[in-house]
């Protein structure tokens, strides 16, 4: 077995234009995903929007530059994640396909294991 982090990327701005009820439907989708795949789920969370993010970068003087906003500005932003367990990439992808992400998509990253 191996672990994968599934990162959910969606267009935050597009949420404002969605039909009422979209959010409820999506929450139901996540619940269903959780129930169906409880055996493979190791964790997961939804994140507050990128407007709440704070980024830190090292500066030349050895201190930090603090910025209001996400590390990288992209149209689709990280909005949540699941940590899943799967035997191989095919199983991980099959699980990831069930995750609701109507305004974007997901990225599947294998967790690195150190000996």
């Amino acid at each position, binding site marked *: 077995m*191996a672990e994968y982090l599934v990162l959910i990327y969606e267009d935050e701005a597009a949420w404002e234009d969605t039909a009422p009820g979209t959010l409820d439907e999506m929450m139901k989708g996540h619940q269903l995903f959780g129930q169906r795949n409880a055996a493979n789920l190791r964790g997961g969370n939804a994140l507050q929007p990128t407007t709440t993010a704070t980024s830190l970068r090292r500066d030349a003087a050895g201190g930090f530059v603090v910025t209001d906003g996400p590390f990288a500005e992209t149209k689709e932003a990280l909005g949540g994640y699941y940590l899943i367990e799967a*035997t191989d990439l095919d199983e*991980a992808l099959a699980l990831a396909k069930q995750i609701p992400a109507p305004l974007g998509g997901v990225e599947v990253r294998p967790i690195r294991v150190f000996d």
Partner: protein
Amino acid sequence: MNAAVESAVADAHRRKWAFVLAATVRVAGDIDVAEECVQDAYARALATWPTAGIPAKPGAWLTTVARRRAIDVARRVSTHGRALPLLVERVTSSVAEGPGPSHVTDDRLRLIFTCCHPALATDAQVALTLRLVGGLSTPEVARAFLVREATMAARITRAKKKIGAARIPYRVPPIEELPARIDAVLNVVHLIYTTGHTAPVGSDLVRPDLVERAHDLARMLWALLPGDAEVASLLALVLLTDARRSARLADDGRLVLLADQDRSRWDHGAIREGAALVREALRGRPPGRFALMAAIAAVHSQSGSWDATDWAEIVGLYDLLLHIWPSPVVALNRAVAVGLADGPAAGLAALDTLATEPLLATYSYLAAARADFLRRLGRAGEARAAYEEALLLSENAVERAFLADRLAQVKS
């Protein structure tokens, strides 16, 4: 070392490489280790066959030697100690192809499906397939795609690392995923073929090395998945189009269009085999993309002359193809066929609907096709401009020479 041994080893390399490697990967649990062991086995063959004699079954001999070596290596370096062991499926699964020799899954299929996994970029799939299934060395793969050796080596290394780190399994996909996964494999083999059929850049029209590898791969797939109509159709397409190879170039190295080819120079044995495969593939199923492309090639191959070509049939086949595979390149080929069926004005009108297609903006064949219809319509000025555009976009020396010739004709 004698010539017979050298030729036997070269033959075993071309015919048996994938078989030997695929069987060794299973034991080694690691692609790199397996590759080294297989290379060692071929080197041992060169060293020992001159005295011991060429074995009756060279493929089996090489497999035994490579696997034994892989077991030795595995004993010394336990798989658990390695950071990224390959995920070799322990249980033998089988492709549901019905009864017949294909019922038992061949390790080569596992190798092919791993190389063409959709989680790998297409150029990585192509490189891995040529290297691991086709047995080409990294410099050979680099040369085939005219990229630097270091670039190709990095591409192959990155792909192999992803197979290990992301745990892309070494197995044949389950039946419900099989059609999509087979399609990805066919795509890779077709890409290798088209790159060889008309090299995108360079001084040669054809890259025989790539064409022949694609032919070998298509034939291997057909042997492994004989019940799949699209697999049979890809082999048919390769046979039918490659049958024209020797007629595509004049003795002075100039390009000869299909319209002007000496059809007696076509390989009629390959055409017979290809046409039979197409007939079988078209029987009783909605035809797939490769079946339709092969059917179009078959219509050309079985026409006694350019003038005798059944253009209405070809347009009809392109309509079906466009319906299931709505690609701009298919639309372009269809437009050309319309022009040949209904005259250059109709062809030009069909081409003009594609003028704003972004995917064709840098495609020299659109400009070349427009130029040809304009020339036939006697619109010399516009034809000249279109030939000039096509010349700007084409990077194949033989095609450029042809376009320059035509440009000179419309200028005079």
